[in-house]
């Protein structure tokens, strides 16, 4: 079981969290302005990298807040966790697509 550091609460066991998919995918402000292909890409296309990956988590059985994390998909090691809206920390570049 992973230990995950909620930026607001500290280290907590994995069972208190819920995974929320890839991070830093902002909802387009004007969806109607997008072509069908662009909208489909926003809805469905994900990086699925081998290596460091920025993803969303929610401390659903704790403070309830969403935050972002960079996790290495090879080792399951968390490189960083940071609040929603903050920039991805330096030194946590995305891995290559698998």
């Amino acid at each position, binding site marked *: *079981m*992973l*230990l995950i550091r909620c930026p607001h609460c500290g280290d907590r066991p994995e069972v208190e969290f*819920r995974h*929320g998919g890839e991070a830093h995918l*902002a*909802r387009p402000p*004007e*969806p*109607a302005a*997008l072509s*069908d292909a662009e*909208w489909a890409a926003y*809805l469905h296309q994900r990086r699925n990298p081998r290596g460091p990956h920025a993803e*969303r988590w*929610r401390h*659903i059985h704790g403070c*309830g*807040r*969403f935050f972002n994390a960079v996790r290495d998909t090879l*080792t*399951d*090691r968390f490189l960083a966790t940071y609040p*929603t*809206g903050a920039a991805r920390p330096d030194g946590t570049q995305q891995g290559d697509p698998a």
Partner: protein
Amino acid sequence: MSAPFRTHQGGRPDRARTLRFTFDGRTYDGHPGDTLASALLAHGVHLTGRSFKYHRPRGILSAGPEEPNALVELDAGPGRREPNSRATMVPLRDGLLARSQNRWPSLAWDAGALTGAAAALLPAGFYYKTFMGPGRAWEKLYEPLIRRMAGLGRAPAEADPDRYAQRYAHCDVLVVGAGPAGLAAALAAARGGARVILCDEQMEMGGSLLSQPGTRIAGLPGWEWLEVALAELRALKVRLLPRTTAFSYGLQNMVSLAELPERAEGPRERLWMVRAARVVLATGAIERPLPFSGNDRPGVMLADAARVYALRYGVLAGHRAAVLAAHDSGYEAAFALQAAGMEIAAILDPRAAPPADLLAEATGRGIRVLAGQGVARSLGGRRVTGLISTGGERIGCDLLLMAGGWTPSVHLFSQARGALRWDAARDAYLPDTAPEAVLCAGACQGSYGLGACLAEGHAAGGGHGAAPGAQPGREPSGMPTAQAVAGAAKAPMAFVDFQNDVQAKDIALAVREGFRSIEHVKRYTTNGMATDQGKTSNMVGLAIAAATLGQEIPAVGLTRYRHPVTPTGFGGLAGRHRGDLFEPIRRAPLHGWAEAEGALFEPVAQWRRARAFPRAGEDLHAAVLRECRAVRQAAGIFDASTLGKIEVVGPDAAEFLERLYVNPWKKLAPGRCRYGIMLREDGFVTDDGVVGRMAADRFHVTTTTGGAARVLHMMEDYLQTEFPELRVWLTSTTEQWAVIALQGPKARTILEPFVEGLDISAASFPHMSVAACRVMGIPARLFRVSFTGELGFEVNVAPDQAPALWRALMRAGAPHGLTPYGTEAMHVLRAEKGYIIVSQETDGTVTPDDAGLSWAVGKAKRDFVGKRSLARPEMRRRDRPQLVGLLPRGTVPQEGAQILASPGARMAEGHVTSAYWSPALDRPIALGLLAGGRERMGQTVYATVMGGAPIAMEVTDPVFLDKAGERVNA
């Protein structure tokens, strides 16, 4: 009773005390400190089971957790029958009742052994080939046969009466394995002030020291040093967990341990979940058997196991042993056994030139060594009586020992995502690097000498200075297994995996049939896939595959080690999560009343809801018809408390709902309600419910019973991550409001006298109104809403006040015919009105338009979640499945039935989503999703019936009753 194979003295068991136990109906005795296996061997019992596939007689192969053969059923009474227990790991206790498995009618005479004669018909890949065979041979012939004759043990039929515990623990250092390396590691760590947990799967700590009474450590005899070391560990407050198997290595050093506590009154098993800053693995090594014809005959045993039985348990596994020694350790076993009183018939060493020092010692002891020779086959029936050497010599013996070298136990290291490296000198995979904070010590990394084990353990425990001293042992060597297995592929009944009955020739056959990857060979032959996970077979199988391929072992690869390393009881994994505690059951505030009324309940998400309230003599159908009629003709009362509720509050609450729901909200006046529909971003309906505007900045949102948590999560997601600028607060209020629904033409008449501070007449409180008021003096939120098509109210009050109000309403309503109704009547009533239930009429691929709900979508809205997806061409096709009403002829179709255009059609054009007998129409009705359904009114379609003729149905409008919707305005 005399135990003819017990030595006169020595060993760990306490000979002053006698324990009686039963195996296959016969009573034997043994001593505390014995295992079931050692006690059986003391009486000369080797035959303990029949093999899985060929039903060959099998005996005790090992003295440890790797045992593939001696699996027995322990029976401690009803609910306490435990199949597949390894006799080598079962501590003997008084009254122990054990049975052999996998035999019929008896162990000595097994009808299934006939398959042995037909063994040639069961080659590698037998299962796969049979599956692919013509006809139904598998179903009709093989599977029933195999199920009757094979099968590993029987699960208990009764409920388990025992208690199981689970504990979390944290420590600085977790040491797995309490042999010399583990003990040295725990001592070093604890002396340095670390919090230490030391676990070992054996009933007694000490590991290999327990079978080395003659050794000396730090100037003390081995067993004395063990006592001193354990006493010091206790004094240093180290948590000592014997009888505890580390079976799973999880992420970030979370290791799961299964403890079988000794105390009878405590839990039967205890699961430890240990988070350790550092882990030291001192898990030892497992001896390899060698493949030759009849290497599975009872009396054929691992050489070191025989040594352990003699020195640790004081039991000679035979009177006259022959030793097949492809590794030096076979000599050590032979010398030790001879010293313990066993005759050594011969040592057969396949090496042309065995080490000179061992040859000299054997000669000095009068033991004959046949260099360059192996075993061609064993002799005997249900017990070995001798062997034929590869040189053709016949040698008599009642024990045939195999020393094929050692396989370090790297299972846990591998689970820690540690990389393994091939060590040609040690002929084994050894731990290399790992991402976790884990260190290895001793035999599990190929260090077999006592001095090396102590030194490595000391270092791994963070010790300073000198490790506990011991004489450096000689560096052992052996014939590489890939050489030692040469020729085995041609030998009949030369077993590699004893538990799954995989022969050497099966592995060679798999390679010849084109399997190259060892993972494929494993699955095709089932080598290593039994409950022992191939602890004795993996490396031998790998060596045969490599030899057949003409490759080196590292080129062939290695299979992964799965969780759990050794079989673990379900009880410990389940802990207290069983029965009522398996999953929480949510009971609504009026549950007790419904229970007292004799309601039938059904699970809805985690809730239990009253399905119907049958009266004496009524079945469910009759009760539902009566309840429906009461609602249509008079009034019904319904517990709707399980509805999800979310309070959406803040200056931007309306704007937030505007973005989350398809409906327009900004112009909804306080005091009014609206039926809301929520989509996912992909445009499909995910939830619905009535939303009431309590004030300009406050909404009372209801969700489906099962959708409450999902909807709140989705709302929080958008609020926190997409629209953080909105000033909105979300609160789950599902359990803060009990909801009593009154539905039917008499609803107002019954309710009106209870309401204070609000005029609920049709004119001043019309359909889809909401207001705060008092009902019977209780602060309430009163909704005028309907899910039945009748005049209806929903009274929201605090849960603790709800039962009193419910009873008062029942009393006041009785003269008017007020009738409690359950979820089944609710379903029928809403279906008569064509109201959908999300997740019944929808399945995650239904748009608002598909469900006939386009009217609810705010056409002028610039955006809402899912809006862009509704504009995709696919979502606008006219042949999408659309909600329709269906009038079945004759009988009620099954929900989920496929809809066909003609009785013989091969392709479905939709499916039935709801189907009931409608009391209002006095006929069956159904709702369904039908391709292009709204353009097919009046057509006849057909619902499939399992094994029967399709039911003809007329496509119609989904609103069956009161199409003008006048009744809600009564």
